[in-house]
């Protein structure tokens, strides 16, 4: 395993499903404290890349190193989550039969073994932290209602809030603004920038306005590998990118 000072070091990973190459020698490095936007047409391998980083899919070849010393290929989702990588799904996935507060409570950093949770009682520090989080994601008044009753946008925020509660070093956020109103999109961008103050973030998104709003380095994926990398303006000017993704 390579020594590296990058927070996330992805080198030459390939994944194929029944002959279809979802990822083709893809490489990506994320610095501590960086926010990176990833764009690319459908089937470019964005979600598969996230699956590899979070341990859901094992790469056929290549290296994935987190925090300079953890070989993520050997770990499963739970281990990787415990190391400090949080993941938000494309479709908001929260516990719909729990209250907003309980959703966050379950996500709070803490002991997660069976007997820990069986006898756990809520500590005052937890209560304070919950309050802060509820405020940050703007769901303070909805704390007692079931998450299933939240609007689509609120669920997205709750899920981001849950990721924050985990206190991760790196957040993977898959299409956070899909299906959101313009106002909600703006709030989400603000939320992500706020989060980025203390953690690294990878955002996969289709919405160009949203990416522009984030104002960060953009990586363009195409057919399972990196096509271009740079500021949004730079990649927008790249003729290959225009051809496969932006143009027409």
């Amino acid at each position, binding site marked *: 395993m390579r020594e590296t000072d990058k927070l996330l070091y992805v080198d030459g990973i390939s994944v194929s*499903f*029944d002959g279809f190459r*979802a990822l083709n020698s893809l490489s990506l490095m994320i610095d501590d404290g960086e926010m990176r936007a990833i764009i690319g047409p459908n089937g470019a391998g964005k*979600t*598969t890349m996230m*699956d590899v980083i979070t341990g859901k*899919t094992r790469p056929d070849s290549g290296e994935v190193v987190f925090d300079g010393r953890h070989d993520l290929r050997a770990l499963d989702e739970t281990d990787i989550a415990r190391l400090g990588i949080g993941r938000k*799904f*494309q*479709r908001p*996935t929260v516990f719909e039969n729990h209250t907003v507060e309980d959703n966050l409570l379950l996500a709070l950093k803490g002991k997660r073994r069976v007997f820990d949770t069986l006898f756990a009682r809520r500590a005052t520090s937890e209560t304070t932290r919950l309050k802060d989080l509820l405020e940050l994601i703007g769901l303070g008044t909805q704390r007692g209602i079931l998450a299933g009753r939240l609007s689509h946008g609120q669920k997205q925020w709750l899920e981001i809030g849950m990721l924050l509660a985990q206190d991760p070093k790196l957040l993977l956020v898959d299409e956070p603004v899909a299906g959101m109103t313009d106002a909600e999109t703006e709030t989400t961008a603000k939320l992500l920038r706020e989060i980025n103050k203390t953690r690294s973030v990878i955002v996969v998104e289709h919405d160009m306005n949203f990416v522009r709003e984030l104002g960060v380095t953009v990586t363009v994926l195409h057919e399972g590998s990196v096509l271009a990398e740079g500021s949004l303006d730079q990649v927008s000017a790249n003729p290959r990118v225009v051809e496969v993704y932006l143009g027409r």
Partner: protein
Amino acid sequence: MYGFRRVLAGLGLTIGLLFGAPAGAQTADIGQLVTALATGSFDDKEKAIVAIAASGNPRAAAIIEALGAGTLYVRKIDARIVIATPKAGGLALADAATGAAAGEGSEAELDRVRVNNRLRRAIEAAVGSLTLMSPDPKVRREAAAAVFKSRDATALAALESALAAEKDPSIRATMRDARAAVLLGSDASEAQKLEAVAIIRERGDREALSLLRGSQEANKGAIGNEIAAAIRSIEQNLQLWQAAQNVWYGVSLGSVLLLAAIGLAITFGTMGVINMAHGEMVMIGAYTTFVVQEVVRARAPELAGASLLLALPAAFVVTAAVGVAIERGIIRFLYGRPLDTLLATFGLSLMLQQAVRSIFGPTNREVSAPGWMSGAFELGQLTITYGRAWIVVFAILVFVALNAALKRTSFGLKIRAVTQNRRMAGAMGIRAPWVDAMTFGLGSGIAGIAGVALTQIDNVSPNLGQGYIIDSFLVVVFGGVGNLAGTLVGALSLGILNKFLEPFAGAVLGKIVVLVLIILFIQKRPRGLFAQKGRAVES
């Protein structure tokens, strides 16, 4: 005893020499021989028996058999020798030498030709040699096989002469085996015995094995070694055949599993609908077969042999209709809730069972096998019943037809479109709900067809389906969901595995071992043998 055999062997030789004498002379002689048989001393009678047997006269068998059965008489009034057969009010008589009718008579008017034990043996040997030369090949074959089993040394001479005359190669082989068997038990020369061992070794079946084992005791030295080697070789050979037999049983069981599971592979495998009433579809198919059979018997008895064929479309239509009704009435309301579907269809299976029980009664119904499905044939050392063989063929046909239907027809294309991307299929103008109903109907219809086949090997009772449902699910899960080829491989491998475990573990334990193995297998490959890999999106 020993000497006696020798005498008989000598007599046999005489038969051999006499054989082939001109036919005219024989007919002329037969009258005299019969007279000698009826009136001479026991020694004369014995010679007469041998001579008659050797005469080649078509009456020979009848005369000697009558003597053996005690139906050969001398009529008191004219000393005519007759064969009597019982009839109402007395005996019908026929002239022994010519077979011409000779009126009627009663026991009191006749003298029975007496025999003693020595004669009986001569009679048996004579009958044996006569049947060995019977014009009917089936009789000859059976006679030779009987000699092989009895190893009767008295038959040797007859056997050798029959062998010389035999034209049919397979009967020749049987006769050669029989001769070798007799020789091995006799005091023949070492060279002859060695040759005999080689012949029997070549035969290589279970009978040959027991013959060799039986003769091991009496033969020491070089022959004993040769016999031991032959036994080893046959045992190895038989083990191979035993394995082949097990494979066949396994294929047979596998084809039954395939038939039961293939409908499920459609409803569960491609639609993701878990239908616990699938077994009941099979059961309804079986009862449809029963009803068709009864109707045919009552209305068109001349079609009785074809009632199973008539039942196929009937069972398909009936169960497909029931399937469509279930899909429209219940399952479509439960899409996306597989566990609820499981419960609802289980309830349905209870109701269907009870309904059939109420209509047809709780006892087994009889579906008879048509002529072309009964009996068996031999393949090397394998015994294969026609019923099983047809089910294997049928299962393959169903599999091929279904595969073709899914891959080559526009309906199959629609099914695949809807299962892969429902919304997109809808956008292309495919009526997804209609496809759902038809797909479910297809799966159910196939189950019904399986029911037709199962009537031939299982009891037609309301519980018929229950026995197959768990096995069917295991086959589909084992083979890999959404994959017909996986179902085929899954069914066959489970069938064969079951049959190979049975001799060691017994039927029940074997089944349990298979269940445990599948449970362990699912640990390793939760999506089955032929799993479809892919990016499963956050589920």
